């Protein structure tokens, strides 16, 4: 199947439509809530929580014996929240740092989850097959009810986001100020964390424990490069997330043996890479261009300054001088001289240059702050 085939089939094929819709919605909600995680410097919380959710899935299965994905996700949610609060407990109550706490919870919960999973596998007559899809995710197992659940959760979180917009925003940028204004910061904080955990748990079935963190981070990190406004960033992140979902599904469907999760993550990584390089405000490319431009301007001004030093010893500022005498000063080439002429700072005639009044004024005021840019 080629990619065009895929887009043709998208409207007719039930499975394909469900999966595409599912990954798109997932990408959108992850991008939306991931923006908060990135800005709160909790990027790796997603990684820790997604791993911490594993024992919850296993315990939910052990208790109910059901493979119904909603029950398992509830278990994941509980254990993810447990992990989050333990992380917070470690950070606030002991001298262990954030990274250690995250790494601890991540690996310990995951190890415990593995213990439970292997324990379940050894149980007789358990229909345990399919639990390990949560490890690496299988978008192919998405059914309509899963997608409906995702849409509902996305709707609710969007509603909460709009309802508490002001509170979330102020907590994000100035927690102390929020407290002094009398907001219940603990409540707001728990609310936003709860929704981040919820988004992660939703994604487990599709992209799996290991890659979930990238799903949360990458669209937000990419969106961050294009704007300095929170609302715009969340909007762009949601769009990047949704597109990563759709493109990832399209690419993995059009090839054999390509699991969806990793491809979605790679597509999202491409978004990040492109944003890092090509975003006009913060991107590396434009930063480099601006850097070179500034350097060239500085060199030009240095040449002008040197000329000014020569010219200022004469009464007539437009007295022509030989280009040769600039030789012991390395900062000029034919091109820079032409540029100087273009700016009407000097005039060239043959092997001679002479300064204009404009250039003289410019050089005179070069180091004056009051000098306006032309």
């Amino acid at each position, binding site marked *: 199947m080629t990619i065009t085939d895929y887009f043709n089939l998208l409207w007719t094929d039930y499975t394909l439509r469900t999966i595409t819709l599912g990954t798109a919605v997932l990408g959108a909600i992850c991008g939306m809530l991931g923006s908060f995680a*990135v800005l709160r*410097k*909790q*990027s*790796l919380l997603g*990684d820790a929580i997604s*791993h911490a959710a594993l024992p919850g899935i296993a315990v939910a299965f052990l208790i109910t014996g059901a493979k119904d994905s909603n029950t398992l996700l509830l278990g994941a949610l509980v254990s993810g929240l447990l992990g989050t609060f333990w992380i917070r*407990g*470690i950070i606030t*109550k*002991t*001298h*262990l*740092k*954030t*990274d*250690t706490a*995250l*790494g*601890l919870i*991540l*690996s*310990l*919960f*995951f*190890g*415990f*989850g*593995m*213990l*439970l*999973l*292997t*324990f379940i596998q*050894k149980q007789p007559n358990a229909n345990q097959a399919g639990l*390990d899809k949560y*490890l*690496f995710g299988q978008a192919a197992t998405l059914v309509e009810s899963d997608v409906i659940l995702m849409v509902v959760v996305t709707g609710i979180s969007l509603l909460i986001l709009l309802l508490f917009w002001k509170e979330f925003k102020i907590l994000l940028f100035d927690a102390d100020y929020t407290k002094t204004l009398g907001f219940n910061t603990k409540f707001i904080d728990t609310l936003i964390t709860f929704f981040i955990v919820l988004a992660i748990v939703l994604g487990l079935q599709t992209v799996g424990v*290991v*890659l979930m*963190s*990238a799903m949360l*981070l*990458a669209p937000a*990190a990419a969106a*961050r*490069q294009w704007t300095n406004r929170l609302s715009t960033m969340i909007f762009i992140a949601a769009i990047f997330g949704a597109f990563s979902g759709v493109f990832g599904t399209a690419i993995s469907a059009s090839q054999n*043996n*390509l*699991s969806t*999760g*990793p*491809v979605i*993550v*790679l597509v999202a*990584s491409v978004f*990040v890479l492109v944003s*890092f390089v090509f975003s006009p405000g*913060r991107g*590396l490319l434009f930063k480099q261009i601006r850097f070179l431009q500034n350097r060239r301007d500085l060199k030009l001004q240095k040449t002008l300054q040197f000329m000014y030093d020569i010219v200022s010893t004469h009464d007539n500022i437009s007295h022509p001088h030989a280009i040769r005498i600039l030789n012991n000063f390395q900062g000029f080439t034919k091109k820079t001289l032409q540029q100087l002429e273009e700016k009407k700072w000097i005039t060239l005639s043959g092997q001679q240059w002479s300064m204009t009044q404009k250039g003289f004024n410019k050089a005179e005021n070069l180091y004056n702050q009051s000098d306006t840019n032309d």
Partner: protein
Amino acid sequence: MTSPQIEIQLIAAVVAMACAIPGVFLVLRKMALISDAISHSILPGIVLGFFITHDLNSPLLILLAACTGVITVVLVEAIQKTGLVKEDTAIGLVFPALFSIGVILIAKNANDVHLDVDAVLLGELAFAPFDRLLMGGVDVGPKSLWIMGSIFIVIIALLLLFYKELKVSTFDIGLSSALGISPMLMHYGLMSVSSVTVVGAFDAVGAILVVAMMIAPAATAYLLTADLKKMLLLSIFFGVFSAIAGYWMANLLDASISGSITTMLGMVFLMVYLFAPRKGLIAVLYRQKQQRTEVSLITFLLHLNNHTEENERHINHLQEHINWQKVRSKTVVTLALKNNMIEIDNKVVSLTEKGKEFTDLALEYIITNKDEKIEPMKDDFFLFRG
């Protein structure tokens, strides 16, 4: 105990020891999550190495995978240096991307590669004794024991050689540069050692559980001591203990060995987290409660000090003034009485000589902004703590 059982425990113990040492430094340098990143991103290195050597235990594969680990660190630092995102985001972007590449590489070549992601991520210690190292036709033991053993010996040798340098560059980067010890060199040295350890251990315990082996013993030890040498020894002890106890638990439950070793590590950490003297949760909560009462006591004494009139010092009056609940006031008054700071005469509270002296001293420290001196002063005055 059969010989494979002994061998499994031996391998687990050696892995635990080899992981604990770099783990201590990672935790102290606040780079614990780098080990998580490395453990995931070595996957493409392992896959490429496997394409070339077709042997999961070949030294070339370990070297290639360790290079991927170091590349991860370099990439994370490069992204961080652009200033576009913070360090944690940089880590979170790099390793899933590399891991995805590894998964896709495996998936695309599934037919000719006997390697699956589960095996790399989760490992299986139970099979480790069956992969024997033959030397000149003679069976000399399991391959992974030899590999981890040599890695462990190298780590110990490096630790002994560079102990001083590691210590100074971990705790004081400025001083270490001034002394001519390059922090960069130490950093990349540690990163290389960590990468090699992770790669060597993934076969036995799996890539994710290596992270537990590195971080958990070190974090547990850090709650108990502030001495680097003791911390190293303690974390080795916790690692080995959990490895052996975890093995027997897995035996009992008939479940994954690496999973139960991690669970064991988790339980050890939980115990220490709750019960560690001074730094454990219970000790911290108790101390916070104690300090709260003692701060109340000082407030109470200062208040008394301000009021010479008898009617202002009536016991019920005070309760209204400082606005405390009844129980709280009672605790504070009892504590003050026990410490001979106040005396109650006909329901009028007054400071004793000792109470007066204490209050004046506390007041002076508060006015001159030397709050930190109040804590040792309490030891001089208090017979009973809050």
